[in-house]
């Protein structure tokens, strides 16, 4: 029987209260939301927090809305709501692509956006999605809020910029013209973690790619943001030729480990194929060519 080690439990009734509780308890306190990463880690003693602060009652952290030139998503938004959001499907269809293949519908009823990002598992899909979209996250502590770009958010395997006594409260994604995005994943069976996955976003102006983001999941110690691909794509007209070059970059810049999901050569190859497919679909969407 797998049961977590003993801990104290507290139900937060306000965001400030949750932050105060975390500060009071120090480094051994953890936030719990959906619990579908933290509880399995606790069962396996990979995590042993002494104090859990449950934020599931903080309904004010569950929302998806457009404000000005940003889409803002509350950290407590569940996978199922990300999947079903027509606003997200319209603005950033990469979310629906990814959510359709994250775990299974019952798990998606519980797991949250904030939990997924804060778990910082390199194989987790939404981190790649948010990296490709160049999202920013809002981190709140007792001293106020700070906004951190996804490029500075993951600082190592299972490590993020969220410090002790802080909570990730919101994800912000800029709305810019000519946007298209897509997520491609290969998994061994329905609902599994990726063997490899790629998220791509493009912003097309006229005939050229004004900006792009490409990120990989499951093929390194952290989510991999392909900076070289972004530089290559910027200013170029979209073409299979340039996407093939991105595929080469993806294969070169990832750092997969051999495991039961496949050997290194296969994973590098797959990362390249998926990066290209994601870019092709993102581009079709940006140009409204997708059926």
């Amino acid at each position, binding site marked *: *029987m*797998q*049961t*977590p*080690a*003993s*801990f*104290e*439990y507290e*139900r937060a009734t306000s965001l400030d209260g949750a932050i105060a509780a975390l500060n009071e308890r120090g480094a051994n306190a953890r936030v*719990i939301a959906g*619990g*579908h990463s933290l*509880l*399995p880690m606790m*069962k396996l003693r990979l995590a042993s927090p002494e104090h*859990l602060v*449950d934020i*599931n009652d903080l309904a004010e952290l569950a929302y998806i809305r457009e404000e000005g030139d940003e889409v803002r998503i509350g950290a407590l938004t569940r996978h199922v709501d990300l999947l079903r959001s027509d606003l997200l499907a319209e603005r950033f269809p990469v979310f629906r692509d990814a959510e359709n293949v994250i*775990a*299974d*519908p*019952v*798990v998606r*009823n*519980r797991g949250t956006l904030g939990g997924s990002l804060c778990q910082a598992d390199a194989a987790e899909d939404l981190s790649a999605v948010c990296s490709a979209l160049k999202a920013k996250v809002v981190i709140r502590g007792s001293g106020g809020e700070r906004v951190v770009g996804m490029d500075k958010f993951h600082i190592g395997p299972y490590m993020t910029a969220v410090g002790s006594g802080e909570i990730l409260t919101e994800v912000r994604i800029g709305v810019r013209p000519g946007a298209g995005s897509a997520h491609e994943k290969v998994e061994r069976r*329905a*609902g599994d973690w990726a063997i490899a996955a790629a998220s791509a976003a493009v912003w097309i102006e006229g005939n050229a790619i004004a900006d792009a983001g490409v990120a990989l999941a499951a093929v390194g110690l952290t989510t991999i943001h392909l900076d070289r691909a972004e530089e290559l794509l910027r200013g170029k007209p979209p073409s299979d030729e340039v996407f093939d070059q991105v595929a080469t970059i993806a294969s070169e810049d990832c750092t997969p480990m051999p495991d039961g999901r496949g050997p290194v050569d296969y994973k590098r190859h797959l990362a390249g194929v998926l990066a290209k497919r994601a870019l092709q679909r993102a581009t079709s969407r940006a140009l409204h060519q997708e059926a």
Partner: protein
Amino acid sequence: MNVTMTVNGQEVTRDVEPRMLLVHFLRDTLDLTGTHWGCDTSNCGACVVHLDGKAVKSCTVLAVMCDGHRVDTVESLEKDGELDPIQQGFHEQHALQCGFCTPGMIMTTRALLNENPNPTDEEIRIAISGGICRCTGYKNIVSAVRWAAEHERAGQEG
């Protein structure tokens, strides 16, 4: 710590350790052994119950997280000796062999039909994709859910 929740329509209060999982609270504390405890890793779906009407895997929810909330298990489905259409459908379509996955499959598909009374086979398959039937009887499970959907709709129209 004390938790109070509504389980199958009845309010219950118990003193539990914070680390107790909902599946063990239901089975060991309340003696509601209809909910099965399977993989313990949120992979198999045998332990699915409804938390505030939504299907959840009770091996990955703490009992204390349900304080003040509503939990419904497979025991809640039969009413006055009458099986729920999904239970009846599993019977009619022979949708169980060993029966271990059955409570989770039934609660998962009950939640599906509550939201979508007329699902396609594809939608049923997606809905049960978080449940594992090691007898591999998926085809009959899909038939059972379709049977339930058809009879439930006929019953409501009649």
